[in-house]
């Protein structure tokens, strides 16, 4: 098995798909000559040329719309947002055009497009460059929302997203681009709506995704040493949601904790908690709990940033309370 970084896995997925289908192109700020602000598209301009690897001006609303228009007539664009923070100026296009076009046109105009880029909390980037929008996009019927944690998942899910005939919100973590992981040789894809048990356990399920797993997995290790057996479920796919996977795990462990980097109010974890109480209420030995980012814009100061985010310590403390 090859060991790839998260960014290499994404690059491989896009490159392989583009080799197969001339309708696919990659468009965004600095994706071409600069080879990607986070170097995700390294080498792709040399391979595919300027016709298919297209640098844009700083103009998210404009090029998101261009991608959607192109998808209306059968092209399959991959639109990179340098970060998801900048997608907010394109959110009208994503919601009002991409998500609804197939419905409004009664199936005449499906929009096979991938919006992808760096998201989540970053290293002291401050309030405007360090935030998670999974909940925002997951709210919208017509969109699919993915947030992979491992290079292998990033590869397999990006392939699926590119092949999907619907608009996909593919949120990468900028902290994870350099992380390494084993990616199976040969081509494969991962279906949407299928969570992955990243760690087996019996006493409590932690449901999480993307960078938050960086805190969850080591916390689970430490708890294991205390004799507390935690199962870790990586959603990977926020919408569609693997309801069966979540419920199966919670029915086994009887406790659920949701850990996310997004804000608490109306966060996606609240939806997961609703699902669990509705469908697995009788199995619960303690209330469903959540750990989220604190309800503040991200501060710059290192200590405050750290304290605002989920952490190993917060997770360990919460799990101990729940197991008592």
């Amino acid at each position, binding site marked *: 098995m090859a060991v790839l970084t998260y960014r290499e896995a994404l690059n491989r997925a896009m490159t392989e798909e583009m080799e197969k289908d001339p309708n696919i*192109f990659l468009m965004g700020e600095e994706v071409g000559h600069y080879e990607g602000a986070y170097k995700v598209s390294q080498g792709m301009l040399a391979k595919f040329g300027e*016709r298919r690897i297209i640098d*844009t*001006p700083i*103009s998210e*609303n*404009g*090029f*998101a*719309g*261009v*991608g*959607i*228009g*192109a*998808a*209306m*007539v*059968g*092209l399959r664009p991959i639109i990179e947002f340098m970060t998801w923070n900048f997608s907010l*100026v394109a959110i*009208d*296009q994503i919601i*009002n*055009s991409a998500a609804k*076009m*197939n*419905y*409004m*046109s*009664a*199936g*005449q*105009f*499906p*929009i*096979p497009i991938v919006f992808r880029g760096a998201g989540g909390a970053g290293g002291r980037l401050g309030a405007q460059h360090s935030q998670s929008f999974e909940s925002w996009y997951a709210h919208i*019927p*017509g969109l*699919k929302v993915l947030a992979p944690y491992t290079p292998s998942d990033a590869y397999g899910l990006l392939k699926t997203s590119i*092949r*999907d*005939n*619907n608009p996909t919100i593919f949120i990468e973590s900028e902290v994870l681009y350099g992380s390494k992981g084993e990616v199976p040789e040969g081509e494969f894809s991962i279906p949407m709506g299928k969570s992955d048990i990243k760690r087996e356990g019996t006493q409590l399920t932690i449901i999480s995704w993307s960078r938050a797993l960086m805190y969850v997995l080591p916390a689970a290790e430490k708890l294991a040493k205390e004799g507390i057996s935690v199962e870790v479920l990586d959603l990977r796919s926020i919408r569609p949601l693997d309801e069966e996977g979540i419920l199966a795990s919670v029915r086994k462990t009887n406790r659920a904790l949701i850990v996310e980097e997004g804000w608490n109010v109306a966060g996606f974890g609240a939806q997961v908690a609703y699902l669990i109480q509705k469908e697995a209420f009788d199995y619960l030995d303690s209330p469903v709990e959540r750990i989220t980012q604190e309800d503040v814009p991200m501060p710059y100061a290192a200590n405050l940033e750290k304290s605002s985010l989920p952490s190993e310590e917060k997770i360990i403390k919460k799990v101990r309370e729940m197991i008592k």
Partner: protein
Amino acid sequence: MSQPKTKKETEDLLELYRQMLLIRRFEEASAKAYSMGKIGGFCHLYIGQEAVGVGAISALEQKDYIVSTYRDHGHALARGLEPKALMAELFGKRTGIVHGNGGSMHFFDKNKNFMGGHGIVGGHISLAAGIAYASKYRGDGAVTLCFFGEGAANIGSFHEGMNLAAIWKLPLVMICENNHYAMGTPEYRALSVKDVSVRAAAYDIARDHIEGDEVRKVREHVRVAVERARRGEGPTLMEISTYRFRGHSMSDPAKYRTKEELEKYKQGDPLIKAEKDLLSAGWAQEELTKMDEIILKTVEESVDFAEKSEEPPLGWLYKHVYAENV
């Protein structure tokens, strides 16, 4: 524009007049149905602007694309979309052009390259640039024509779409139908320029400005822009000055403008102009009256069809939220 001289020119104008008259009668019927509560939501009528849509769209080929606004009935009819299916859509019936999923603001017809009916002011401009982008990507020789109002010329999507179309030399013709009011806001309170097309200078692209009361003149000017786009010489920004005789939508009594102003513009009614030209060219009034009767019958039939059609089955509620993966 001078009056038609040859028989061919006269017949050509007659066909354009027929299309304009169909729009006028269709809209009058929809206004009536709206008043009777048979049409819901917003209903933005095109009455008064017919020469723009008919003239511009008649400059296109079948392979070309049209992107429209929330005021899309006229554009759709000019493109030849079926009046019955459009009226049924207004009535929210399963036989509607988008099966009752869209309503007045969201007509789509893939077979006619009619790319919507978009409800967010100016949001569709970058979509149009994207469709034109795809034509350039594929080299299919098609041109995209995008309509918008002067109100849309102040939104970011307009400027971003224009800039992208300009730097990539996209086969796009942008037509600002300036009817002088963005809902109730007159242009002088919202626009930094008197003629939207001068903004073309900011993007170093071609521009044109005309009055939109003569249908053949509109076509002639739009044709120049379409040909320029087809030759690969990039986009054109046009302003076609026009006027809506009704309010912004059916719910707007248009009290922000005077009766005198409305009357002045009604003198320039594009249908009356075309009718006069046809009569001067020797066409008989009876022929025109007969044409009107045929159109009225078509419209009545479309209302009847819409009325008798069934509502979409409840089982269709979730249909088309997601496209199938095949």
